[in-house]
């Protein structure tokens, strides 16, 4: 197909228009108006960087970023460790292997909002019931403090995503040639050595994929946050996405919210570009 051919443009234009109108136009429009006093419909004054200066003094926004980073770190470690553990478990030769995969993956098909509501019940009612039956005070009053709200979100996220990350690891584990493992076994390598020296190097690419998937996912989390804690108590478990949403649609401070959204974009894009960089570097190393 040539650039000038009608069919090339016929094939490409529909998605190009949709992408332009839905992503790029709002992106540029929002970027421009983040330098004004835009109220969502019109702007009367150019403010320069005033909104951005304000954002960096906004303790609520900064707290939400800090909370998001802590959440991302805890999630990344736990999701990947547990996801890999599950993958190693279900790739053993056993009868229930397929059933187990099905079960561990199941939460990923259900929306974050619904999962958040289910876990709200688990943390508030079921944890409380177990806690009072066993006399464990630590299980009572969940989601009513910042700490339990934080761990509640982490547990929900790990429960949901470990199964997703599991199937990525499975894809790589299953591509490890059986002969290699058998050869290692004949040479006297035990199960741990077979994992560490044979499987591990071959599944390394899966780590990069999974790390960045969990990272960008943790940064964009909204539905689960809304359904589980709704940012409470006192906005202390509010993540960045929710903070931006509330600035725009609860406080109706549109230009200000958009400047937060621009900063959010820079953060997320930086993470993604780092991933691209590492992937390229790895390909060169190989």
């Amino acid at each position, binding site marked *: 197909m040539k650039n000038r051919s009608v069919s090339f443009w016929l*094939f490409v234009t529909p998605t190009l228009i949709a992408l332009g109108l839905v992503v790029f*136009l709002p992106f540029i429009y929002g970027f421009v108006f983040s330098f004004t006093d835009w109220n969502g419909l019109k702007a009367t004054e150019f403010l320069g960087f005033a909104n951005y200066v304000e954002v960096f003094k906004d303790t609520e926004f900064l707290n939400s970023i800090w909370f998001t980073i802590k959440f991302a770190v805890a999630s990344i470690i736990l999701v990947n460790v547990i996801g890999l553990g599950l993958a190693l478990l279900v790739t053993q030769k056993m009868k229930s292997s397929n059933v187990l995969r099905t079960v561990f993956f199941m939460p990923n098909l259900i929306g974050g909002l619904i999962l958040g509501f289910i876990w709200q019940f688990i943390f508030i009612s079921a944890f409380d019931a177990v806690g009072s039956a066993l006399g464990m005070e630590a299980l009572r009053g969940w989601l009513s403090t910042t700490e339990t709200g934080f761990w509640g979100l982490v547990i929900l996220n790990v429960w949901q995503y470990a199964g997703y990350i599991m199937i990525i690891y499975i894809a790589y584990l299953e591509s490890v040639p059986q002969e290699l493992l058998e050869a290692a076994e004949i040479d006297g390598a035990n199960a741990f050595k077979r994992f560490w020296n044979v499987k591990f190097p071959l599944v390394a690419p899966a780590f990069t994929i999974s790390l960045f998937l969990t990272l960008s996912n943790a940064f964009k989390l909204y539905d689960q946050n809304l359904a589980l804690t709704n940012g409470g108590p006192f906005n202390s478990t509010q993540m960045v996405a929710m903070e931006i949403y509330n600035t725009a649609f609860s406080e109706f401070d549109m230009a200000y919210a958009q400047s937060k959204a621009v900063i959010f974009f820079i953060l997320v894009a930086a993470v993604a570009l780092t991933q691209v960089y590492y992937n390229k570097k790895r390909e060169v190393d190989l």
Partner: protein
Amino acid sequence: MKEKRRNKLLVEICGILLALLWISPFYLMIVNAFKTKNGIFSNVLGIPQEWTFENFKQAFIDLDFVSSFGYSIFISVASVGIIVLFSSMAGYALARNKSKLSGVIFMIFVAAMLIPFQSVMIPLISLFGQVDMLNPVGLIFMYLGFGSSLSIFLYHGAMASIPVSLDEAATIDGANKWQIFWKIVFPMLKPISVTVMILNVIWIWNDYLLPSLVLDAETATIPLKMFFFFGQYTKQWHLALAGLTIAIIPVIIVYFIAQKQIIKGVTDGAVK
């Protein structure tokens, strides 16, 4: 050998216990949805002493389930349909045109994946509001915009395994580009089309944030209705849990029918 077999059994038992722990939230949701308010209060973990279906009746009515299910189906099917239609066309054209311009267009689609939804959310709603497009049709169009990038990326990758000689042979036989694509290439893209459909359905069916900004109460999808419903019945867990159970059932049914394809689709989408 005996020891090995015993170890294997031990691993399997651990796996099954872990799986039971994994589905315990669903177990708690379902058993408590069958209890009365007092039943939950006195006994959270066990099965109901008295089974009641009243919760489901009320939740079904309050969720306006027939309507919200219908809108969820309509919006998901229409969005995924046009995503598959237009993304496969664009992926094909971009893969077959090796010019610089084509490369740049492809990069634009890939670059769009870097932009998180929240960064365009506010101006998007403002712009579409100004042209009166905050309705199901506008929403479907938005899903095409947000969904096309990854889909085109996947189609573009899949085109690498379809030899150009097929196109050339068809051209010699007198077929035009349109015929070549729909009669020869598109059928060969079927596996990747299944992947694209699965990835987009999971996302669109479950999406809450975008529809909450675009749709009104009359055209609400299941996640939206669920949000209103839950707010209405805070602390009335027997009703809330029945609602959640109803909302999940269709997904679980589809999962059990098509789990192989779903897991394969999600793997391909993540690994490629």
